């Protein structure tokens, strides 16, 4: 054993300078061109979140295939390592560790729920990995090792509530904040509560409610909403996540609660989640996102076509009716921005890629040129509010004039004014 070691050592001492010379003569490319770059995909393919996350895995694979077709990154092909954390939060951390230590991936694209992101975060920080997180979330977090390509609260929740308060949105006076019981809805509702109060809404006009993950019986909740709405013009802000949305919307439809009476604006319901629902009774309910499939522009036309061709080619489960949605767009943007950053940094080294990410731009399907903020690891995004149409698509009824900069530290949470809008080596996470 020791003999072998010695031989290897000697061989290395001989080859080393030569390689160094080589490296000096011909810049890094030939050395990098060997093998593939491994890319981790960490999305639940089963369990309560599979309804939302499966397509994110697919769209990430599509982007990888596109990039490979054009010659890969730095002359190397990308190789996806797909794992299934099964909507099980501790398993997310285990799988993340496996991706970083065993598979040695250069970057991971993954997570949907904030609780899954919170459980992988220590792993990424400990091992200095790189995570692209493609879903709108509650803010209150800024890690050097994470890029957030979804919306922060000021890019989704706050504009949506402002819209509902406006004349066009129905001029809501009373608010039901309804969510699944975990960190994203709780924090979002905390921010919204503070925001509503700043707009003069009284405590008695806000009703906050939570249900467990996978909750299926929304009879009482819908009856309560009805009762609450008798006290004045009411709007419901729903942060229900996962497949619970199907029984919730079914119950809304069955109990005849129409959008013209009590509009429901959802932050986690897009085209994909409405697939399993009869949307005719839901016409007019709202969703706030930074992208809708129905947005008309050449980039989006092109992208939806590509996706539908990919879905057909791969015979995906729903290839008969391919849909795109906001987190898919965010995942797609994230993949391309990472590619551009790697090309700029000329390496997949995490620290160098992080530095190169600042200020990256990408022509997004939402019709804007998405910019990665130079400092705060979030994208500048345009906000759209859409109403559900009978065919399950959304009709954009309101949008911001241009991209909005993300505020991960919401000014509506006490103490946030002192926090810096950029990671400073250490993570700053409010517990």
């Amino acid at each position, binding site marked *: 054993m020791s003999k072998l070691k010695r031989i290897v050592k000697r061989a290395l001492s001989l080859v080393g300078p030569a390689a160094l010379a080589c490296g000096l003569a011909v810049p890094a490319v030939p050395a990098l061109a060997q093998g593939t770059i491994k890319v981790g995909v960490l999305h639940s393919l*089963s*369990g309560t979140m599979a309804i939302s996350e499966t397509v994110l895995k697919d769209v990430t694979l599509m982007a990888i295939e596109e990039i490979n077709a054009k010659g890969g990154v730095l002359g190397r092909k990308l190789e996806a390592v797909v794992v299934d954390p099964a909507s099980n939060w501790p398993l997310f951390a285990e799988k993340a560790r496996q991706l970083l230590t065993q598979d040695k991936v250069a970057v991971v694209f993954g997570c949907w729920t904030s609780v899954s992101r919170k459980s992988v975060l220590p792993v990424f920080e400990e091992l200095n990995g790189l995570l692209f997180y493609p879903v709108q979330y509650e803010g209150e977090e800024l890690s050097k090792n994470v890029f957030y390509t979804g919306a922060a609260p000021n890019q989704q929740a706050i504009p949506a509530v402002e819209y509902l308060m406006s004349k066009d949105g129905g001029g809501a006076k009373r608010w039901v904040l309804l969510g699944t019981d975990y960190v994203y809805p709780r924090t979002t509702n905390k921010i919204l509560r503070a925001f509503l109060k700043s707009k003069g809404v009284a405590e008695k006009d806000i009703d906050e409610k939570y249900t467990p993950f996978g909750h*299926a019986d929304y*009879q*009482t909740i819908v009856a309560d909403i009805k009762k609450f709405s*008798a006290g004045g013009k009411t709007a419901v802000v729903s942060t229900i996540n996962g497949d619970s949305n199907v029984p919730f919307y079914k119950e809304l439809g*069955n109990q005849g609660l129409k959008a013209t009476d009590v509009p429901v604006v959802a932050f986690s319901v897009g085209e994909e989640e409405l697939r399993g629902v009869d949307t005719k009774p839901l*016409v007019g309910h709202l969703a706030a996102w930074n992208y809708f499939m129905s947005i008309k522009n050449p980039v989006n036309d092109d992208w939806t076509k590509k996706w539908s061709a990919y879905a057909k080619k791969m015979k995906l489960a729903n290839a008969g009716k391919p849909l795109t949605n906001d987190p898919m767009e965010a995942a797609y943007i994230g993949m391309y921005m990472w590619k551009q950053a790697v090309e700029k940094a000329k390496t997949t080294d995490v620290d160098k890629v992080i530095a190169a990410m600042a200020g990256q731009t990408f022509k997004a399907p939402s019709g804007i040129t998405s910019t990665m903020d130079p400092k705060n690891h979030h994208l500048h995004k345009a906000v759209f509010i859409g109403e559900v149409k009978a065919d399950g698509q959304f009709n954009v009824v309101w949008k911001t004039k241009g991209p909005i900069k993300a505020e991960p530290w919401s000014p509506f949470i006490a103490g946030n004014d002192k926090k810096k809008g950029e990671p400073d080596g250490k993570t700053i996470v409010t517990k």
Partner: protein
Amino acid sequence: MRILPTALPFVLGLLASAALAQDAKTVEKLAFGDSDERVEAVAALVAAGDEKSAALLQALADGELYTAGKRVLIVRGAGAVDAATGAKVAPLPEDREEITVNNRLRRELGRALAALKLVSPGRDARFAAARELAGGAEPAMLPLVKKALATETDSAVKPLLEQIAAALELKAGDREARLAAVRKLAASHSPNTKTLLLSFLEAEKDEDLRIEAQKSLREIEGRLAWGERAGIVFTSISLGSILLLAALGLAITYGLMGVINLAHGELIMIGAYTTYVVQNLFRAHAPGVFDAYLACAAPAAFAVAALVGMALERSVIRWLYGRPLETLLATWGISLMLIQGVRTIFGAANVQVENPVWMSGGIEVLANVVLPWSRIVIIFFAAAVLAGMWLLLTRTRLGLFVRGVTQNRSMASCVGVPTARVDTLAFGLGSGIAGLAGCALSQIGNVGPDLGQAYIVDSFMVVVLGGVGQLAGTVYAALGLGFANKLLEAWQGAVLAKIAVLVFIIFFIQKRPQGMFALKGRAVEV
């Protein structure tokens, strides 16, 4: 005024004959204006009140109104007419865009159309229109409502119209009219009236009027409170019926036969997936009778789950009788295999099971209580399954054998009961009932490979709480848990309710390990 939007084809016939000449300015405002201008245009069209205006509004509500350059078109199928001039437009312009309607406009449109329909010849149309307007009418509609009231004779529509008129006069009328209106509103059943009176109380200065309004408000609130109580009772029974369905099969396999079957949830899941397959077959081969697919799906779900159950019993469980720990592990393993099997065949994502039309929507018993059809059907279905099972166990030879074998296996065997076959059949029966539960659950919840996991704990909870071996106990436990859960949920929210119920059961089982109803008398065979 006689030809109304319900007779839309006829109206469109008129359109085609180019009789239409809208006020061009109103049409322009409706198509190109901002929201405020559009709402004004809708109001102007209601004030005009003729059939052309009604047709235009209906077209907008149905998404048939398009813009093409500066023109506004009503597009229906392949044909189009210019909304302003009534002239035919052919061919359809390529650059046409649908005029989008948002919630605010949709609300205004709904009310406007309802107001125009108040004098429709059909009683149902008038009733629907009055119901729509009861949700909130504009003061400008008062003349229309009064006109309708003058000719209305129907006993259901007239009181509604009176309520609407009263609500409008409350906002606009003089003191006498307001007083009369407040008194009239006391008869209302609607939560909207409560809202209206509350805002009236905020603005009104007149003391007499305030007192009257408060009196009316109290009356309405009393009525609404009854509705709420009725709602809680219904949701409790509904939840109870679902728990009962999920647990009934287990009441046989665990309760009577003593098999700790952790794969019970997966048998429910198999029933749900069978429903999904049958639904797809109907959609593909007999779309005409799609709404009847459940009639076929229920027996199929029973049969498939029963066959899977019998196969399990024959191949695995039979060798483990009397060894509960091994049974527990084996059935748990089987459950994992079944989940993975379904995942491999159907994919990990949830599949969609569509409700037939007759199970969508609900029936309004009171203004604030709507009972969804799907829940009502499931309550009756659970009752029917329970009755069927009871008859089978108490009135048939097989039932007699099952009871005989479970009470005293060796004695039953001695008198010639084929115990092995009875075991298989009984297990098949329990599994089949689980399949029926899956068929029912597919109508209200998600159908995915993990469906069973959500119900296995609940099922055991019901059977253990009710008392193992007791059918009646299972029924009481299911309904009891339904009520406990819903009352707690109404009081403390869904998350705490779930926890509280579990804590309660832990304490209950500590106090009474045998459950609510224990078998008395000689010991049952272990």
